[in-house]
């Protein structure tokens, strides 16, 4: 991974402007407006149904806002797809193919040839590129790591991770947090939707609290704001 130069002056690269997202009668996002700076690690917290995943999918260009706009690096999310990596609950990998084969295929989608980048990503998440077993036989922790490897394959400037640590063993989780920490230091902007806020305490620059489809609070630490959430 190339190491970025000195810490960049805070410039907002992700702007969300009064976004409403309606699924039929249910409004998942109810007027979200926010700006997020380059090179910072944001944790998005909140109960189920608060709209965390919908917001992340909107940032990734997978969900079209019913109203309002989102701009990433000044472009709309779908145009900025080369610069963003997305990871979701499901693995987004083929179960019958090994990790290496999966990554080689997805590298092709980004026009990247050669195996060294794939092997590099796999090693970065602490897995063995030579593993021939199908991803379907991986443990949950290994599968999440391989999914993360796929998300960082094309060295994106923006990472959008949906619950990367969910039901992952503590060891794997700590490794992944360490990896994300290094990437943030390398200048990447990271968004993590999670229920395990404590894992990111002291690592994430900002904790964004969401409830009922809105951002209700943005704090520097996961703990201090605990009592303000009803």
């Amino acid at each position, binding site marked *: 991974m190339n190491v970025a130069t000195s810490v960049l002056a805070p410039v907002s690269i992700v702007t969300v402007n009064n976004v409403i997202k309606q*699924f039929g*009668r*249910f409004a998942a996002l*109810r007027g979200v407006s926010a700006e997020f700076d380059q090179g910072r690690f944001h944790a998005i917290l909140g109960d189920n149904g608060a709209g965390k995943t919908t917001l992340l999918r909107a940032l990734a260009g997978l969900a079209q806002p019913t109203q309002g706009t989102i701009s990433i690096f000044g472009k709309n999310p779908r145009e900025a797809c080369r610069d963003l990596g997305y990871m979701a609950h499901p693995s987004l990998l083929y179960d019958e193919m090994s990790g290496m084969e999966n990554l080689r295929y997805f590298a092709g989608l980004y026009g990247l040839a050669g195996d060294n980048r794939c092997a590099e990503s796999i090693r970065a998440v602490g897995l063995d590129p030579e593993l021939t077993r199908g991803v379907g036989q991986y443990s949950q922790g290994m599968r999440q790591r391989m999914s993360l490897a796929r998300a960082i394959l094309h060295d994106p400037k923006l990472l959008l991770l949906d619950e990367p640590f969910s039901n992952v063993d503590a060891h794997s989780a700590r490794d992944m947090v360490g990896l994300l920490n290094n990437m943030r230091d390398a200048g990447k902007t990271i968004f993590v939707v999670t229920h395990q806020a404590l894992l990111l305490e002291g690592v994430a620059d*900002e904790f964004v609290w969401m409830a*009922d489809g809105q951002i209700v609070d*943005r704090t520097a630490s996961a703990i201090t704001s605990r009592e303000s959430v009803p």
Partner: protein
Amino acid sequence: MKRLFPILSIVTVALLGYALYQALVVAPTDALQGDVYRIIYYHVPSAWTAFLLFFINFVASVRYLARSKASSESAVKWIAIFIGVVGLIAPFLPPVRAKIPAGMEPGAVATTIVLIPVFYFLVGKWFPGDRLDVLALTSAEVGVVFCTIVLVTGPLWARPVWGIWWAPGDIRLTSTLVMWLIYVSYLVLRRFSNSAQTQMLAAALAVFGALDVPLVYLSIWFFRTQHPQPVIGGGGQMDPRMLHVLLFSWMAFLFFGFLVGWSRFRLELLKREVEHAHAMESLVGAEASSSTSLPLSRSAR
């Protein structure tokens, strides 16, 4: 505007009544088929109305798809203009003129083709935004109703005259059946799809369906030349008095179709308004609770 609907209803009922009277009494009895031929005054107008409604659905769907992406909007605009220009010139060129069936005037063919782009631009102006999709849905649904009538009255006509319930060789009836299937599958897709972009998918299917219609005609037409079979209503010239009653009946059904379509249109708008109100209600509900109990904190820079 509100008063227009009842007035139109009265006019339509009067027209339908008079058309019925003409169809049963004024129109002469057919030499061959006797009085049963009078089914034509309901069968054929319903078919024409159905085809017109399906055409409206096609234009609205193309417009809806084109509007979603600016690049495709200008492309489709130029295609529409191209069709208009070709439609204006082609029928008068000698080679093309020879191909036009005897009964039709080249001028008539030209005007009908030019109507397509004209209608395309009118629909764009009169039905902004979401209403375009409502128009597509309405015209498809009401079109299917008229199409059902054609498929019911067709066999009821063929049975006494040819002793058969269904004439597969008859292009018009068979292609009407295929169109009925296509637009019913269109309505089924709208009902079953729970995607946020159902409207887009439905518009895509509508374009597919419309592209299919000429191919349906083509395949059945050739199939019929190889296996000649009786044709319902027969071709050839009609007695002018009969033609007059037919056209009058069609006008009455067009009025009726317009009224049914208009109310279905308003029903759909009401349905979307209710849906919007539900969403907004949950929105307003949330704001009320979140703004009071939680102080919106300073953003942590």
